[in-house]
């Protein structure tokens, strides 16, 4: 073992007893050890420390409204979701048991409704319904994205901040993210009411509204891809695509000098962050870099 290897092992505290003895015999062992020992002269707590908890409490109670935003996607989504949740919560205060299910970043969950209908929730979404009232009225409120498999029966309604869906018994996907609202029908038929528009979707149809624009189209798949561990997009603004990446992986993405309303068609798998980033940035000729602690910068690529 040469000298540098010994030093490396000493630095990482992995010397065996024999190696340790060899290290002590090095000609400049004292100098080497001195360098590490003397670092203690710079120890932070001799010069600076965090305030105590009382200081924090005072600050919490007198804080000004939020100043500089670092990224605009996250605060925007957060504000939107706080406002919507507040609005929806007040809507939900009807008597009886309101069951509420929430998912966090990178989380998906399946919920069984009282009539055995199934709902699968995507990340950062919220579902609420009244269990007691269920046989009289099958109504759920959704913020976010969910896939529904509804048992045939009385009218089943999904209420979202951007539109309402009514069915008798089918499979359909509802995606409501901020201004983006999309319903895809996979089985049976679905009535959608959004803004001034009302239409019926049959199997394979989808409807989308984004900001003020509406469009109808066809599904590319027979089941929503996010339930199969992949997120897919058809001509969706990349700011929405990156927002979904943030939700699935729990990272924070900043776009620098990138046109946020560029349209993207494609998808990414939920298994690996780097592959997912490549799947999106490469077709768009963008580049990315992951800095420490789950931050990603997206910049224009080299031509």
């Amino acid at each position, binding site marked *: 073992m040469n000298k540098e290897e010994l030093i490396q092992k000493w630095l990482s505290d992995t010397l065996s007893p024999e190696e340790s003895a060899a290290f002590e015999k090095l000609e400049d062992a004292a100098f080497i050890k001195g360098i590490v020992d003397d670092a203690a002269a*710079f120890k932070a707590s001799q*010069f600076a420390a965090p*305030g105590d908890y009382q200081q924090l409490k005072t600050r919490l109670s007198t804080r000004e409204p939020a100043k*500089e935003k670092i990224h605009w996607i996250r605060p925007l989504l957060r504000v939107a979701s706080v406002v919507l949740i507040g609005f929806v919560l007040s809507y939900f205060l009807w008597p009886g048991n309101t069951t509420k299910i929430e998912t966090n970043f990178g989380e998906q969950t399946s919920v*069984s409704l009282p009539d055995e209908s199934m709902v699968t929730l995507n990340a950062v979404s919220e579902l609420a319904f009244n269990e007691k009232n269920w046989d009289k009225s099958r109504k759920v409120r959704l913020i976010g994205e969910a896939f529904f498999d509804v048992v045939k029966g009385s009218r089943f309604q999904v209420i979202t901040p951007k539109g309402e869906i009514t069915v008798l018994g089918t499979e359909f996907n509802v995606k409501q993210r901020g201004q983006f609202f999309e319903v895809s029908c996979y089985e049976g038929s679905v009535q959608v009411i959004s803004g001034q528009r009302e239409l019926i979707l049959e199997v394979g149809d989808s409807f989308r509204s984004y900001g003020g624009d509406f469009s109808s189209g066809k599904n590319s798949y027979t089941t929503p891809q996010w339930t199969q561990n992949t997120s897919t997009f058809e001509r969706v603004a990349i700011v929405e695509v990156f927002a979904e990446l943030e939700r699935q992986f729990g990272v924070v993405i900043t776009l620098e000098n990138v046109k946020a309303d560029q349209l993207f068609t494609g998808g990414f798998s939920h298994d690996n962050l780097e592959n997912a980033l490549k799947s999106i940035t490469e077709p768009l000729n963008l580049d990315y870099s992951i800095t420490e602690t789950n931050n990603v910068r997206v910049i224009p690529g080299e031509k």
Partner: protein
Amino acid sequence: MEKDLHKEVCEEHIYSSLYEKLAQGLHDFLYYKYGQGLNPNDKVQEAFIKLWENCKKVSSAKAKSFLYTVANNLMLNEIKHQKVVLKYQNQKPRSYTKESPEFLMEQDEYYKKYQEVLSRLNEEQRTAFMLNKVEGKKHEEIAQILGVTRKVVEYRIYSAFKVLRDELEGFRIK
């Protein structure tokens, strides 16, 4: 079927115990990485405030990584390429030397040089080196804090050490 996810951080006794547990380590990490000039204590408090504001969305298990991410971002926002100068305080002189005036002057020059080299180090190397050698944090914990692998942490510590050794070579007692 109700899931009361992550409400615990909103409870004050849990939030305050998170502060007791994590504030010092977070402060020291910011201090080593960015120095005193950018007010690490202020960023620690801001990060905890953001934690409180988002207490419903963050579990107490994820609180540490949330805090470090937020605090680091707050720093990056403010950074204006300031040189990071860490203060030092002379430790006890080593036992084999005498306290002659020449010695004391040389010791002061040594620490001035040490300080200068530390400030020139790549901030990632400096942070890993200080957290391990001065704060005694294990490589695994540092890896988690920085969001990198153990091997990367070992490499950064070794790199920092090599620069210090080369630059301080002149002070070696032959």
